[in-house]
């Protein structure tokens, strides 16, 4: 084990830090949110540094990077509060497709993705099913050499920005995963803003015809791919939360050193010093926990992998809440306004628990996979 970055990792992290400082400022992020759609230039600038191809296997034009590098990259993206579809597309969809056996789809999409020219997302959640990946109302029927999809997916992360969707559906009583182009006949979408300044969508499939070769996987293999994609997504989400916590703690300390009340900087008050200490403790524990998840991603035993990822999700979500809430509290009235970036970081940290399975879901999953 070696905790120091390799030369390549150091260069990548440094370049990303610079990119974030220059192009993901508070004002720039807000302007992109307002436009309500993906800023292609921003996406290109991430791609140029290798973000889009990071997890794409080398055979398909990517870098085939390790979970450790993924962690380092997402920590930087979290510091910059990137809300472009990196986790949804470059981590989750790419991992799912990259580990599948459908070489035709891999050849078609992965190379494009590595070049920053394709955005994909997974549509797996359904209304009233909480975080379950297996309860599916969306279903597929075989009809000669194609499938016909009917159903509805909710909370599809960056659904409106994606060219193609990986859709889970019930086929012959088991889970199947299909690649569906967003422009396909019968696909309709309601796009909405999310509280962190991102976008998600509810997508309906009404008799959508899908060619037979667009089936990515079915049965146990489909479930395993879906779980693997989630586990990678969760680890990236936690790494981003760690980066966001780090930045938020720095900003908060800076604020308390500057803001004066009772004739002295707020940072002089012991009660507030302890709160800053608490933030640092949480941040360090969360990062260490995320290392555990990244280590777990290499596990060949998928149950053990999922267990490590779930425990990380639970702990990092708790840390993210403490750090976010404390940062707001220590900023006082200014912390609850929409006028400082502390609020944006707090909101982003809040979704660490809500997305990709909440604390209750992951506590249960730890129990289930251990059994």
């Amino acid at each position, binding site marked *: 084990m070696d905790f120091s970055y390799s030369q390549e990792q150091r260069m990548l992290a440094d370049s990303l830090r610079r990119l974030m400082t220059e192009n993901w400022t508070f004002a720039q992020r807000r302007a992109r949110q307002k436009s309500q759609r993906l800023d292609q230039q921003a996406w290109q600038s991430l791609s140029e540094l290798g973000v889009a191809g990071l997890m794409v296997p080398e055979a398909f034009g990517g870098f085939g990077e390790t979970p450790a590098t993924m962690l380092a990259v997402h920590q930087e993206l979290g510091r910059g509060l990137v809300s472009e579809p990196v986790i949804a597309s470059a981590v989750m969809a790419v991992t799912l497709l990259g580990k599948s056996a459908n070489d035709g789809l891999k050849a078609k999409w992965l190379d494009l993705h590595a070049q920053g020219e394709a955005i994909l997302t997974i549509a797996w959640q359904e209304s009233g099913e909480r975080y379950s990946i297996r309860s599916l109302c969306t279903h597929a029927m075989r009809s000669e050499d194609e499938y016909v999809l009917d159903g509805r997916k*909710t909370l599809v992360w960056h659904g409106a920005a994606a060219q193609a969707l990986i859709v889970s559906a019930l086929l012959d009583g088991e889970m199947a995963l299909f690649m569906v182009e967003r422009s396909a006949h019968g696909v309709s979408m309601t796009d909405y803003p999310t*509280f962190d300044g991102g976008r998600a969508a509810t997508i309906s499939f009404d008799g959508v015809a899908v060619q037979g070769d667009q089936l990515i996987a079915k049965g146990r293999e489909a479930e395993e791919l879906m779980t693997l994609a989630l586990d990678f997504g969760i680890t990236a989400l936690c790494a981003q939360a760690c980066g966001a916590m780090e930045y938020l703690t720095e900003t908060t300390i800076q604020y308390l050193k500057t803001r004066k009340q009772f004739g002295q900087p707020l940072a002089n008050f012991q009660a507030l010093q302890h709160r800053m200490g608490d933030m640092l403790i949480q941040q360090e524990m969360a990062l260490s926990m995320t290392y555990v998840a990244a280590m777990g991603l290499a596990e060949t035993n998928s149950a053990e992998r999922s267990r490590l990822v779930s425990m990380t999700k639970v702990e990092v979500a708790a840390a993210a809440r403490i750090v976010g809430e404390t940062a707001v509290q220590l900023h006082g009235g200014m912390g609850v306004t929409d006028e400082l970036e502390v609020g944006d970081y707090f909101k982003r940290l809040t979704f660490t628990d809500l*997305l990709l399975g909440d604390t209750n879901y992951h506590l249960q999953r730890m129990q289930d996979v251990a059994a």
Partner: protein
Amino acid sequence: MDLTWTPDELAFRDEVRNFVQMNLPADLREKTFAHQRMKREDYVRWHQILAKKGWGAPTWAKEYGGTGWSTLQRLIFEIETFKGGAPRLIPFGLSMIGPVLMKFGTKAQKDYYLPRIITLEDWWCQGYSEPGSGSDLASLKTRAEIVGDEFVINGQKTWTTLAHHAHHMFCLVRTDPDAKAQRGISMVLIDMRQPGVTVRPIKTLDGSAEVNEVWLENVKAPVANLVGELNAGWTIAKYLLGHERTGIAGLGHCHRELAILKSLAERTMAGSESLSLDIRVRDNINRIEAQVRALEMLLLRVAADSSAEPGPKASILKIRGSEIQQDLARLQMQVVGADSWPYDPEWMFAESAYYGPSPAFSAAASAGYFDMRKTSIYGGTNEVQKGIIAKHIIGV
């Protein structure tokens, strides 16, 4: 000690409950339970319904047009109206400047202002915090100079809740710049409808704009609008904050939000079952219910103990009340789950179309969580409250 409700108290509870059921307009009730934003007219409508019944000032003595209720009755009233889905009573007149005028005001001030508060004919706002004076309120810089028979006021106030609706502001101003911090402060009543008053909304985390910055440039107020004595404003300010802190426990709010939390858990589906059957969710709901009950009893004890003026124990109420309100909002968000992630501030208005992914009843859960962060900051941060406990109760 007798820990039972008397038949009179129970009868009073039923009377209030029935009154709310019969007289609260249905659209207001719906807005409350859907967490939709109230408009100015909505508040006025409810205030006037209560005023007509003679309940417009539940916490005031009869001589001022109040109900003359006991502290217990007031509390029952607060809980029952909140639980029934009524809008909150606007506190700036009823709980803040009203009691201050009763104690420190002139006869003319009482005669003119108090009746107009009961009907919400006058909407008040609180001119306390300034950009450089938050927790350290006594460092405030807004200046008032006496020119002839008028105060001329210059300065800037902030976090002024609902100032955009207000006719008047009770304002802390510095009247003696040479005196030590607390000693040169006075309280002056300012008419907001005059040139030189500029109100700018501050957008908060949930996308709403209930608080404002207020600029005062050569704003005038007759010297008769001084409350109490010149340069004695700090004592009055503290008296008012003590009053604010009992109300700030938000007990009625807690009871209502607990009911909403339970209802959300019942109506949210996790596959074929209601989420309220999930043991992890149930544990959390049961625990927060216990805390609300403890808060209620604490409030009763504090109210009974300090019949005239709420003592420093009000700080305990403020701290726990705000924390419980925050936890309730967080639990609501967690119950709604990932469906609380989509959010458009427009969804908070009854008139706007909702197009989110979940049933509309759960649309505002994350906004509530973000908004409730203010409760441990306003009315004196919880850190300041702990300082008060240390100083005045523990004596260190």
